[in-house]
Every structure is written in C-alpha cells, then in structure tokens.
C-alpha cells in the first residue's frame, strides 16, 4: 500500500509543479492546492505503519483497538490542512486583487 500511496503522492507533486509553472494565476493556485494534498498524504504515509485498521478511538477501558492507525500524523495533518486553508484563502484574495490591479490573470503581466 505504501507503494501506491507513494506513487499517488508523486503524481500530486508532479501535477502541482506542472500547474504552478503555467502562466495563469488560477492554475498556480490550483497547483498550490494539489501541493498541500500531496504533503498531507505524505505525512499520512509517514504514520506508524499505514493500516486499514480502526480509527484511533479508544474504548471505555482506554485501550486502543487492535491494528489502530497512527493518531499523531492525523493530528498533524489536521493542523496542516487548516493552516493551508487559511493561507489558501489569503492567496485567493491576493490573486483576485492582483488580477484586478493588473487587469489580467497572466502571471507574465504581473511584473512591475
């Protein structure tokens, strides 16, 4: 499974970089989105063994289910997702205003 995840991560990164190298601001931002997906999956893969097991929710005795997923990476990804969301919202607003100021969404026009 790690192999499949790794290939998926590679695809996400490749797609992200390709999109970011386009001239459209929109594609740039979509690339950033893909990039953050790639990173999230990467952290996920780094968990304590990627398992199909149970979600990290302990029972009433405080014991985790057998074959439980790594909770720490999940918490880290959650934090990362929310942070990148905040940043993405800012980037969107910035791109909108830049587009408005320049009158084009072509990055090559966005030069002083």
């Amino acid at each position: 499974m790690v192999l499949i995840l790794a290939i998926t991560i590679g695809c996400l990164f490749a797609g992200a970089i390709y999109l970011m190298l386009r001239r459209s601001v929109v594609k740039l931002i979509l690339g950033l989105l893909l990039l953050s997906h790639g990173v999230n999956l990467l952290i996920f893969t780094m968990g304590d063994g990627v398992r199909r097991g149970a979600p990290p929710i302990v029972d009433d005795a405080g014991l985790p289910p057998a074959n439980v997923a790594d909770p720490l990476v999940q918490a880290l990804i959650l934090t990362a997702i929310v942070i990148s969301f905040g940043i993405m919202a800012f980037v969107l607003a910035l791109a909108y205003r830049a587009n408005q100021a320049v009158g084009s969404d072509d990055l090559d026009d966005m030069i002083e």
Partner: protein
Amino acid sequence: MSLFATLMGGLLAVLVISLVLTMARLLIGPSIPDRAVAFDMVMIHVVGIGAITAALTDESILIDAVIVVAVLGFLGTVALARYIEEGGS
C-alpha cells in the same frame, strides 16, 4: 474473511468501478456543467463508499462522516451550479 465481508468488498469494488466511469465524464466534459455533474456523482460515490466501508469495518462512527460528506456534496454542487450560471462559459 467472511462471506459478508467478501460480498460487501465486491460491492465496494463495483462502486469504485462506477466511480471510474464518473471520472471519465470528468475528463471528457465537454461542458462545465458536465463536470459539475461528475463532481456531484463523485460525492455521491464517496458517500456510498464511506457507508460500505463503515459496514465492512463495523465502525459506526464513519456514518457521521458520511452525513457530513452528504451535506458537502449538496453544498458543493449547488455552489458550483450557482457560479457556473454567473460565470458563463
């Protein structure tokens, strides 16, 4: 593996294949609303896959996730349609 799990797993696989077909529409388009249709279908598939996974793993907590996915599918599709309409094509 129990027969139930095998059958459910099979159904899950069918659902994933169905999702592949939906993806084809996403690729083909040709119009933007076509892609929005594909998006809606993807979300519906996520609901289905989530539900079946819940049954397979006997994790009722996944059901709550499925509820939220359903809500989001609706919101996403409606918003998409809304802005397609405003944006023109």
